[in-house]
């Protein structure tokens, strides 16, 4: 009796879990299926759930026309800005924690920079970039994303560094490490979970940015979100290209999250408990 009840409950749970998973996975499946569908299938009614054949012509078109470079542009800008923001932000956070740079209020001021609605500064930044000749350049976009992500990195890393016992650092100093070596050999290993979680989120912010990429790029460093919008025409909308381009934009994120999942979960829970 009990055993039967147990099995029944298990089945119910599995069904529920499956339903929830389907609910969340379906949009991604739909996106992927569109990218492989023929135009007729895309507009068919009732909808075609599974494309009749894997039609990769949309992908071929993306690579043939060079549109796929947008994903590369996104990888470069998001990747490099993440690396720079993590280095600068970790050093800044260390300074704030250990040397009390700026006292109590500097950190709040820094994070407040992050709270500005991007649209409010988009136009001034556009004018600034025009004057500096940074429009449509990697340097421009990377600088901007670094600047926008730094407050977040500083804020997060400050929390993680505060949790590291001071004696660990002091012990390393007495043992013969310099301050710089303490950061690479003690601080980063100790805050590893938080460090990677912060890096992933920083990367995602830059990866998903649409507004600045739209305003500050023309043709050379167009990122993938901007490229996607290129397929919405006044005459017609290229759904299969939209689907294919979006898939190219989603895949790197899936890889990043899958490889970093261990760190992200740990890092987030650390932050949650210690605040």
């Amino acid at each position, binding site marked *: 009796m009990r055993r039967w009840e147990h099995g029944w409950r298990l089945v119910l749970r599995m069904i529920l879990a499956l339903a929830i998973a389907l609910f969340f996975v379906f949009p991604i499946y739909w996106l992927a299926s569109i990218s492989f569908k023929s135009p007729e299938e895309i507009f068919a009614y009732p909808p075609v759930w599974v494309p009749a054949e894997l039609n990769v012509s949309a992908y071929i078109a993306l690579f043939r026309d060079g549109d796929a470079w947008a994903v590369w542009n996104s990888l470069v800008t998001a990747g490099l800005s993440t690396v720079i923001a993590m280095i600068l932000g970790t050093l800044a956070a260390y300074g704030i924690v250990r040397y009390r740079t700026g006292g109590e209020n500097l950190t709040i001021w820094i994070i407040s920079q992050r709270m500005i609605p991007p649209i409010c500064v988009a136009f001034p930044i556009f004018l600034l970039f025009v004057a500096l000749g940074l429009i449509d350049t990697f340097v421009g976009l990377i600088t901007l994303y670094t600047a926008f992500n730094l407050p977040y990195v500083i804020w997060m890393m400050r929390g993680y560094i505060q949790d590291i016992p001071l004696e660990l650092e002091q012990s*390393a100093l*007495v*043992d013969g490490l310099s301050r710089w070596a303490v950061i690479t050999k003690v601080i980063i290993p100790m805050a590893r979970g938080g460090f990677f979680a912060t890096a992933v989120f920083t990367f995602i912010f830059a990866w998903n940015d649409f507004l600045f990429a739209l305003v500050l790029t023309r043709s050379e460093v167009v990122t993938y979100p901007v490229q996607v919008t290129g397929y919405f025409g006044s005459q017609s909308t290229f759904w299969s290209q939209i689907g294919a381009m979006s898939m190219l934009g989603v895949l790197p994120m899936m890889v990043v999250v899958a490889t970093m999942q261990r760190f992200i979960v740990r890092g987030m829970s650390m932050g949650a408990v210690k605040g």
Partner: protein
Amino acid sequence: MADLELANIEKHYGAVHAVRDVSLTVQSGAFVVLVGPSGCGKSTLLRAIAGLEDITSGDIRIGGQSVTRLAPRARNVAMVFQSYALYPYLTVYENIAFGLRARGEPEQRLDERVRWAADTLSITDYLERHPRELSGGQRQRVAIGRAIVREADLYLFDEPLSNLDAKLRDGMREELKRLHARLGRTFIYVTHDQIEAMTLADRIVLLRDGMIEQDGTPLELFEEPASRFVAGFLGSPPMNMLNVRLAEAGKQIHLSQDLMLPIAGGAAPAQDGEYVWGIRPEQVRLAEAGAPALKGTVDVLQPTGSRLLATVLIGAQKLTAELDAHCGVSPGQEIALSVAISRTVFFDGEGRRVGPATAG
């Protein structure tokens, strides 16, 4: 191997004057314990020697060289922290090797040193484990291993045993002493525990409010305390402090109006007046019939097994006496106690010790 000299060390934290004009010379090879109640400046002083704390003024010299302005890593000292300060992401082996790697020790020499340290501390079996897989006592050994693996001029210990339970602490004390004898290096050890100070030290430096209250061998501090504070700090159970009045040029001790004890000339200060009479519990015995004695009533008895601690009411004052376990007294009983007066001490109103007339 080098002597350590502290010259007129001062340390202020904002308005707090943590260390006041401390001067100290430590011979190489000594085991010096800095002891005192919390907030006395002992840890600050140790951390200043390590270079983890800037000093406001004064000079710190190791082997005759001033290190006051040097970074911790340039001082060639090794330190064991209260929290052990082990790196959770490194194995025991790597934890011990950490300081040698930081100083670029060649791999073979490093391996030899780590294995020697592990062997000395009997932790060879745990070398591949991580600190979280070790007990408190084992972590403590690793922390000590991290220090002794290096050939430092000074080994600093900041309350290393305070996180261990009482039994482990006793064992580690013995091992530390053996380790010191074996290494022949200079140990500077901070503790608030008087037993650790007494048992470990060649020399105790007792600090109070940032100043050196007394500096000497454990027995000197125990038997010849410079002040009531030192006398009260060392010894367990603590020294009895009775308010007395000396009369007849130090020939009579009055404990109250009707309680007087005649004493031999020269055992007490010659100057008559009010004093605090310091008597260690082990300096009190049951009096033999006819001998001059303190009469009192047994209040509480605490057998320790080997001895019997008796709290005796003498007039309005309490006196703890360490008696023979089988002496047969019971609470409420009237007893007569004799005191080894020549070994007791007297303190003036300021708490300073006043020597007996013969010493003057």
